[in-house]
């Protein structure tokens, strides 16, 4: 492991393990290397080990085995220095409903040891940055979920950390709040802040992360840029949902020449990975039409991180369909094609 200055060092972990009593390994020998200024998306289903990893890297949970350096400091022997260099917004926005946003900022800046003269200025600056200036003097108990998350982010930035940990920062937020938070995270990365972001939303990892690590059952099963990971899968899939479920077999037969069959889809249709790529879509429509199959829906899916997850683990990413208010990225839908 390297010894870099805190401003230039990112996150490095080797063989990081966390075992809980009478339980399986929550984190099982993971290696990580996050470059300074990078947004690293840590993607996985609930219970995969994302939050446990964050707790270890933020020094709130000692690892059972393995080593990690955050901002150039060892997480087990230099915990205090790690905490001085990082900011964290953990899974739940941990706020006091009886305090106002400004009172939270005042407490946070003071506990981080900012000079008294600087505290009010820094608080006002961050509250403005996350769009909470007007609500700053209202008690947090009356804030919406999005406002709480934004305040959480502002608090994490109070002492100008070089590395920011965000544990599922947009879970449960509406699309406007999510987008606002994404913009803020992107802006921080442009300013040179290293961002370690956990998420169970494919869309979020795809849109935000420079690199993505996919974790399942405590192990990293794939890592790379979203484009690299999707390129490993390569070909798009076409999903056809027959109007009459009795036509399933006929549809399968009609689609057989176009590529290998994937697992049944959530909508009860058939899915085939197209050997010839998306240019085969018209041929697929013609084949279904020729077979006399009335189709309720036909969708072309570009390879997604869910496909990567499926390819690496043999199952779809839990919660992928829960991403609110937006469709999966890269899908084009056609309604009711084929025979009437």
């Amino acid at each position, binding site marked *: 492991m390297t010894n870099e200055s805190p401003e230039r060092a990112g996150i490095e972990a080797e063989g990081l393990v966390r075992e809980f009593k009478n339980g399986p390994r929550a984190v099982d020998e993971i290696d990580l290397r996050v470059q300074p200024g990078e947004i690293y998306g840590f993607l996985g289903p609930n219970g995969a080990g994302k939050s446990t990893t964050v707790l270890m890297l933020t*020094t*709130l949970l000692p690892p059972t085995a393995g080593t990690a350096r955050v901002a150039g400091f060892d*997480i087990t022997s230099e915990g205090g220095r790690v*905490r001085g260099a990082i900011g964290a917004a953990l899974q*739940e926005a*941990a*706020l006091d409903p009886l*305090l106002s946003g400004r009172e939270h900022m005042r*407490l946070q800046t003071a506990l981080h040891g900012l000079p008294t003269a600087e505290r009010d200025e820094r608080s006002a600056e961050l509250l403005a940055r996350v769009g909470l200036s007007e609500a700053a003097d209202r008690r947090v108990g009356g804030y919406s979920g999005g406002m709480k998350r934004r305040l959480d982010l502002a608090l994490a930035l109070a002492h100008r950390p070089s590395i920011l940990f965000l544990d599922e920062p947009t879970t449960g937020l509406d699309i406007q709040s999510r987008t606002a938070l994404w913009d803020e995270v992107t802006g921080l990365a442009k300013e040179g802040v290293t961002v370690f972001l956990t998420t169970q939303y494919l869309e979020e990892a795809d849109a935000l992360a420079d690199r993505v690590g996919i974790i399942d059952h405590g192990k990293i099963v794939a890592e790379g840029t979203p484009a690299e990971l999707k390129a490993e899968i390569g070909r798009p899939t076409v999903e056809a949902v027959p109007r009459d479920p009795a036509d399933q077999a006929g549809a399968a037969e009609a689609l057989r020449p176009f590529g290998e069959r994937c697992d049944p889809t959530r909508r009860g249709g058939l899915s085939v990975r197209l050997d010839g790529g998306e240019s085969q879509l018209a041929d697929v429509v013609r084949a279904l039409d020729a077979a006399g199959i009335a189709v309720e829906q036909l969708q072309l899916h570009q390879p997604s991180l869910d496909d990567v997850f499926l390819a690496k683990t043999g199952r779809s990413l839990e919660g992928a369909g829960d991403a609110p208010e937006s469709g999966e990225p890269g899908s084009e839908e056609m309604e009711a094609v084929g025979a009437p």
Partner: protein
Amino acid sequence: MSGRLRNQVGQLARRSVLRTLRQPGQIVPALIFPLFLLAVNSGGLKDATNLPGFPTDSYLTFALAVPFMQGALFSVMNAGTDLARDIETGFLNRLALTPLRGAALLSGLLAGAIVLGLVQAVTYLAVGLIAGADLAAGAGGALVIVLLAVSTTVAFGTLGLFAALRTGNGEAVQSLFPVFFVFLFISSMALPLDLIQTQWFHDIASANPVSYLLQAYRSLLIEGWNLGDLALGFAIATTIGAIGMWAAAGALKTRLVRT
């Protein structure tokens, strides 16, 4: 105390006081309930003053010591519940990610108990005196009563902090309230120790530190200045506080496993 520690204690104390003042649900029952019991007891048990050797002819004056102890017991619940909520919501983790020292956290959290103790003591004393209770030690005695009440409130508050850190659960902390109340009932709450005739009750009440805390208050209300009783009362409050703080510090170390 270093400047940084003082700053941390001050900030957390400010938060603790704000929290307390913004929760009337914590303050009002701690004021009303003991005063209600005082009214009932001083009316219903006034004939006890006819017992030979009873130290005063005003049962109200004798019973006025009890609300101070009941108020202190409320601080177990209030201080503990606030901390347990911080654990449940993850606020403690937020604090743990700052350079906060454990001593600052515990001391700061008790600031709310101090304010509550102060408000309680002044209210109980004022209501008691208006209702006709005596205060043999005069104005100086009133100040000492308030000081003793705040000390006792803080001492019991540390037990609430310990319970919160051990359980991490607000409901578990609240369930301790009746347990602590038992200590009040098996003390010299209703009669002076030397007038309790039932031997087992007398033995338990004599071994119960609450009896001596009550006696410290009563000495000021009934006798005037009895330095022995006062010293014993303050010593017991200090000992309970020290034990509670030591236990809470140990529990905090276990709870905050930050590296």
